[in-house]
């Protein structure tokens, strides 16, 4: 590209091509963490708490990525918490009763976990698709369909299980919960190294692609700085998780279970939880879908201007079905993580999750008017919500006050977002 006029001087943020909204959220998150760390005499930012915070965030964060698509298409899904419960009930019943009793697969068989998960994902996807059909084809407002769904699926779960807590769940299944399934230090480092290589390759190929078409690219130092920041964040995160040692008594029990005696002074780190890896994979996949596939492009086009999308030949009804089916599948995936973390299915699993998920997406910059939202923002939103909640619990704030603060923060965050959009001249 030939530039006829001299390029205006760019600020550091512009040169690095950073997303200022994301930067603001990161800043708020860091301030929040430092504040809680100060108030708790350094207990908030310990490897142990970072580990716990991470595994507590996973379930809501997974659903928040799907909620971005739902809200971007100008819809809402109030049923995700209940849908999670139904998917969880399906998986619990499948692994404790249907498979062992009806199909004769013994408890503890390696087939139990995968079959149960497939059943749960299928149930979630089907329920989501059905709600999407009611919204897209029968044109019942999403608010009403999913408000009905909130009651229907919560009580379908209750009906299926007679309201009983079902557990303990299969040992392999429990590995998706957090503490019961981690990679250990060595494999966590291997994965971190792979992730760093992945980031470098992605940045390099994006730059090469731009240059191949003759578009402007940012200066090399900015590219390197970006690569450095991202690699540092990955390695720092894994180092923190690897610094959290499995408690000695728990380790001793693990050795006992294998009929061995734990050597004196033996220690082992938790490392990356499998649930967090699931979240990272979901985040990558959803970002790819949002930015690099036709489906994702149509989701945003429909949110920006439903008529334009329709006139461009996009089947917006089918698109609605797909968006809600995807939301259902993600709610079921969250059900795997949530029930595995609790080691059982309980009647109140996922209660109020719909509000946490919507709040996470909205705090993460998803506009309820549609067309605008990012996956990474929603995940950061989930992390901020969870940090706020568990930080306040650590400080010793009373439970009702915690909820009051979380509610107020949600409203405040949206107001700040409106101000931000007015200043940057973005359409609301």
């Amino acid at each position, binding site marked *: 590209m030939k530039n006829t006029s001299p390029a205006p001087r760019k600020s550091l943020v512009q040169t690095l091509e950073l997303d200022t909204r994301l930067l603001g959220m990161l800043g708020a998150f860091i301030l929040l963490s430092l504040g809680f760390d100060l108030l708790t005499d350094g207990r908030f930012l310990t490897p142990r708490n970072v580990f716990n915070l991470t595994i507590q965030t996973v379930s809501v964060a997974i659903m928040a990525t799907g909620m971005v698509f739902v809200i971007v298409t100008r819809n809402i899904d109030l049923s995700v918490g209940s849908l999670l419960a139904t998917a969880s009930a399906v998986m619990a019943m499948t692994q404790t009763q249907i498979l062992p009793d009806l199909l004769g697969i013994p408890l503890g068989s390696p087939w139990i976990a995968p079959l149960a998960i497939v059943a749960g994902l299928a149930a979630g996807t089907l329920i989501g698709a059905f709600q999407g059909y009611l919204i897209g084809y029968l044109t019942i407002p999403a608010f009403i369909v999913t408000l009905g769904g909130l009651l229907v699926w919560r009580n379908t779960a209750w009906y299926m299980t007679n309201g009983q807590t079902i557990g303990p769940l299969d040992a392999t299944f429990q590995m998706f919960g957090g503490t019961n399934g981690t990679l250990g230090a060595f494999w966590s480092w291997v994965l971190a190294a792979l992730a760093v290589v992945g980031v470098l390759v992605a940045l390099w190929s994006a730059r090469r692609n731009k240059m191949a078409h003759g578009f402007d690219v940012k200066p090399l130092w900015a590219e390197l700085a970006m690569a450095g920041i991202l690699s540092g964040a990955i390695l720092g995160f894994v180092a923190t998780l690897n610094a959290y040692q499995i408690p000695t008594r728990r380790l001793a029990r693990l050795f006992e279970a294998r009929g061995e005696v734990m050597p004196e002074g033996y220690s082992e780190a938790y490392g990356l939880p499998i649930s967090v890896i699931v979240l990272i994979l979901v985040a990558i996949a959803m970002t790819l879908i949002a930015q690099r*596939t*036709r489906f994702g*492009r149509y989701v945003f*086009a429909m949110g920006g201007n439903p008529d334009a999308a329709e006139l*461009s030949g996009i089947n917006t009804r089918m698109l609605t079905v797909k968006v809600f089916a995807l939301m259902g599948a993600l709610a079921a995936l969250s059900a795997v993580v949530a029930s595995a973390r609790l080691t059982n299915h309980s009647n109140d699993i996922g209660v109020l999750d719909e509000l946490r998920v919507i709040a996470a997406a909205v705090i993460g910059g998803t506009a309820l008017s549609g067309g605008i939202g990012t996956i990474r923002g929603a995940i950061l939103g989930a992390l901020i919500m969870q940090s706020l909640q568990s930080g306040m619990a650590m400080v010793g704030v009373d439970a009702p006050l915690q909820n009051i603060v979380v509610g107020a923060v949600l409203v405040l965050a949206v107001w700040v977002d409106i101000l931000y959009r007015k200043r940057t001249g973005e*359409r609301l």
Partner: protein
Amino acid sequence: MSALVEMRNISLAFGGVKAVDDVSVDLNAGEVVGLLGHNGAGKSTLIKVLSGAYQADSGEIYINGEKAEITNPRDARAYNIETIYQTLALADNLDTASNLFLGRELTTATGLLDEGAMEAEARKIMARLNPNFEKFAAPVSALSGGQRQSVAIARAVYFNARILIMDEPTAALGPQETQMVAELITQLKSEGIGIFLISHDIHDVMTLCDRASVMKNGKLVGSVNVADVTDDDLLGMIILGKKPASSAA
């Protein structure tokens, strides 16, 4: 030789209101036909039947003499019918290239969107239509009326339209941009494209169109050769629904 487009006895009612009542119009290759009439005369509704946005209750459409089934916008595109809507039909939150290729994205071998190729193509076509256009990274909500119009036109032109429908293409534009659209219409016409031009502006129709079809209250008043009539004749048709004595075509 048969006409490029023939719409025969098209009727469409919304509730009890007959928006289009037994209207027949036709269009030849390399010809510009103006569609005139008051707001609510049924021009846009008629044309949306051709572009697949609405389906007629009765009547038939022939493309190159063959009966065409157009039930949605995708069908219309398959017949190389492109529409530039009055409301611009752009997704405001997406950038120029995304809007240009909306519904017909270029993909890589892996099936993922080829953003680079789409932006490169967008730059090429925009350089032809609107050389001053630079805002490729911004969402189209950040563009001016004229720039948005050129994106909408680029969309129709890029995909080799044979039949182009322009619904009030100059309604939101300044004089210079209107001139640009006029030149473009002349150019497309010389390339053998048939154009339906919906307009309020009699002056536009008199200068750009070969023929004009006038509608009133959902009915066709008549079709005339523009060269045979005066501004006042056309006005009479629009306001009084009366065909001039010297009518032809």
